[in-house]
């Protein structure tokens, strides 16, 4: 029996939740959910502009400075006898003192040596302190209505009336419309104020319009999200959207979506569980999306970029090792022993590797089938002719390793040639991670580079060799001339 009643209770709860989520739990609830969702969308949209304008935390100062205005409006309302909880009065008070706070921040950072971030922190804390003082005075007045102000600090949608929800909705829709209509202008001044001014745009008017939208959303959002957290709604969705795109035109709808989803889930949760602070839920949803984006985004995400960075390091290390062995063996090769081994210790680059990195990396190269690792069994006393010989690990290239190394060496030389030939355009094309030069450059350029590489003395061996690695072309005179006439055009250092 107990089980049935429990499960039926669960079913009703689920049905309730479903009704709220699909906006069928009464007109008021639906309005609140729609209003908060739109607020999220609008905040995401206008937040994108303020983030790009590097004013992300100005909204925080704005919101915190709104508290004394709210409290004063409440006191004024009570004294005038129209009641403290007139929403229009409260929001007007909030807007006025919020704007005052922002103006003071700008005044301080422009006229004194105090930096803007410091001014923001100072103003928001001082205004909030003043608000707290006024709240304690209101408490002393004993009007019995002061609980209503509390909702503005943490945010509470459950107490929203139909009018409140409609106001939120209207403000949000207005903001979205303004941002859509003036998208071009907003983007312009976010990107390049100087250019915008020079081409005759009224930048201060546009700037003001943008700030007005931020103020509108902040003030309206105080009710549902609260003073302490409204800034999150303006910062987190755009910051999260930034991971997925480099284009403002994509970033804005994306930020709007993130904000909208957060607002929707937050208000639904609040409708179902009246005790829960909506603002916190909204921010946590947005924060969750942000962290997901930061980790998972393929282009700018943490996982992707860490993997790419690691891969690049491995590639560069591979390059150095293979080229090192290749060129060393090249010098050492004789007709009797065309593929001599190379002492690991003789490769300068490995000198500062730690043992773990060395072990992992050598195992990696062996697993790819490029090198063989041998231990030199000879004891020092068995080879007295070798003074100070490096007894230890010997590296040998396998046939696959030779092929790979030949390719890498050719690739490297071609890049070098390219950088010297096309100095002024080269930088933007160089991609170290490209497997082959062919992936980044056109065949004509490569042919040209190969031709110019071949004209250098001693370079012919390389071009020949990377095409026919086996059998090793070991004509003694090419090899003998190789170290001096290295195609690398770095001259020997002057001592």
């Amino acid at each position, binding site marked *: 029996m107990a089980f049935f009643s429990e499960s039926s209770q669960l079913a009703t709860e689920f049905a309730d939740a479903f009704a709220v989520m699909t906006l069928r739990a009464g007109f008021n609830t639906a309005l609140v959910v729609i209003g908060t969702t739109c607020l999220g969308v609008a905040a995401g949209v206008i937040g994108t502009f303020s983030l790009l304008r590097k004013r992300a935390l100005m909204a925080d100062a704005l919101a915190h400075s709104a508290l004394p205005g709210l409290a004063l409006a409440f006191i004024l309302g009570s004294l005038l006898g129209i009641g403290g909880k007139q929403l229009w009065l409260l929001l007007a008070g909030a807007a006025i003192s919020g704007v005052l706070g922002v103006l003071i921040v700008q005044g301080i950072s422009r006229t004194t*040596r105090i930096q803007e971030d410091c001014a923001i922190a100072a103003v928001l804390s001082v205004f909030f302190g003043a608000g707290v003082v006024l709240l304690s005075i209101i408490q002393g007045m004993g009007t019995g209505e002061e609980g209503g102000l509390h909702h503005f600090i943490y945010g509470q949608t459950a107490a929203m009336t139909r009018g409140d929800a409609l106001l939120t909705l209207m403000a949000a829709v207005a903001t979205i419309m303004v941002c859509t209509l003036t998208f071009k202008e907003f983007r312009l001044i976010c990107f390049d104020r100087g250019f915008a001014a020079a081409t005759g745009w009224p930048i201060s008017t546009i700037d003001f319009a943008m700030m007005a939208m931020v103020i509108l959303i902040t003030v309206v959002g105080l009710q549902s999200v609260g003073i302490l957290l409204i800034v999150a709604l303006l910062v987190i969705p755009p910051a999260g959207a930034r991971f997925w795109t480099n284009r403002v035109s994509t970033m804005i709808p994306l930020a709007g979506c993130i904000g909208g989803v957060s607002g929707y889930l937050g208000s639904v949760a609040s409708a179902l569980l009246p005790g829960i602070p909506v603002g916190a839920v909204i921010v946590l949803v947005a924060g969750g999306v942000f962290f997901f984006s930061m980790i998972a985004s393929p282009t700018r995400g943490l996982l992707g*970029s860490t993997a790419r960075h690691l891969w*690049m*390091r491995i590639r*560069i290390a591979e390059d*150095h*090792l293979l*080229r*090192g062995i290749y*060129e*060393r063996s*090249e*010098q*050492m090769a*004789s007709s*009797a*022993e065309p593929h*001599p*081994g*190379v*002492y690991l*210790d*003789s*490769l*300068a*680059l*490995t*000198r*500062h590797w730690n043992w773990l990195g060395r072990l992992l990396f050598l195992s990696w190269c062996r697993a790819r089938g490029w090198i063989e690792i041998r231990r*030199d069994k000879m004891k020092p006393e068995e080879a007295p002719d070798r*003074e*100070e*010989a*490096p007894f230890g690990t*010997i590296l040998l290239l396998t046939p696959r390793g030779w092929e790979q190394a030949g390719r890498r060496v050719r690739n*490297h030389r071609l*890049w*070098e040639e390219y*950088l*010297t030939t*096309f*100095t*002024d*355009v*080269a*930088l933007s094309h*160089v*991609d*170290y*991670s490209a497997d082959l030069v062919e992936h980044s450059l056109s065949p004509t350029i490569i042919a040209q580079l190969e031709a110019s590489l071949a004209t250098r003395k001693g370079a012919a061996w390389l071009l020949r060799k990377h095409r026919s690695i086996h059998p090793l072309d070991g004509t003694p005179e090419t090899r003998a001339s*190789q*170290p001096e006439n*290295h195609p*690398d055009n*770095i*001259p*020997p*250092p*002057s*001592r």
Partner: protein
Amino acid sequence: MKLFSRTTPVSSLAGRPEHSPTSPLSVHAMTVAYHQRPVIWDVEYEAPAQALIAIVGPNGAGKSTFMKACLGIIPRATGLVEFWGKRFEEQRHRVGYVPQRESVDWDFPVSAIDVVCMGRYGMIGWFRRVSREHRSRAMECLEMVGLSDFAHRQINQLSGGQQQRVFLARALAQEASLYFMDEPFAGVDAATERSIVEILKQLKADGKTVIVVHHDLSTVADYFDNVVLLNTRIIAHGPVSSTFTNDNLRRTYGGRLTILEEVGESMASQR
């Protein structure tokens, strides 16, 4: 099996010189990358001892990056940097560094002498205070750059040239054998420039090596005896007379500067 002995000079990349352990700075196969794009690409360099070396190259060629990567201030993707044949960590006290003037907050509440004392911090070590000897040594360094009257002046009340000289005094206070200076001539007046050059020459005469990121091509030949032409990779390096040629400059700057021609001509007429 024939294996080469270690007594012959070895290097991981054949055809590249093995660096001598007496060189103040040897850079081997150094690559610094930012988001897959190399900023410094496979640089091979050995600085001569007791020389004034200019690093020259176009904007964004990675001149400052080269310095910072050598000192480990920014990470290297790969490469080996040795100071007198040892790692930087073991030779820290012998290496001085003068960052770009804009890299610090000149509104910071310290006086000139405090800034110069910072050069002694490496010798003093963690936790210990700045002793009187260190302070008087710092004062001597300020005197060398001609700023002893300004020792207790706040740094924001100094002119750009004076601020640069304070930085130089701080480097002198480090008493290093090798100095890296990132654009010491940026935004200084002609008189300061001359006095800085005097100090650099004095440093060289004392057997020290100074590596300077330099912008002004027209003064390279006057101020320096050695030059490194850098554009992502080292295009050329060596004595000014043989390296600082029109051809090398064009390869470095890629024909972007017409002024190069004039510089080359003036160089030729000087010689």
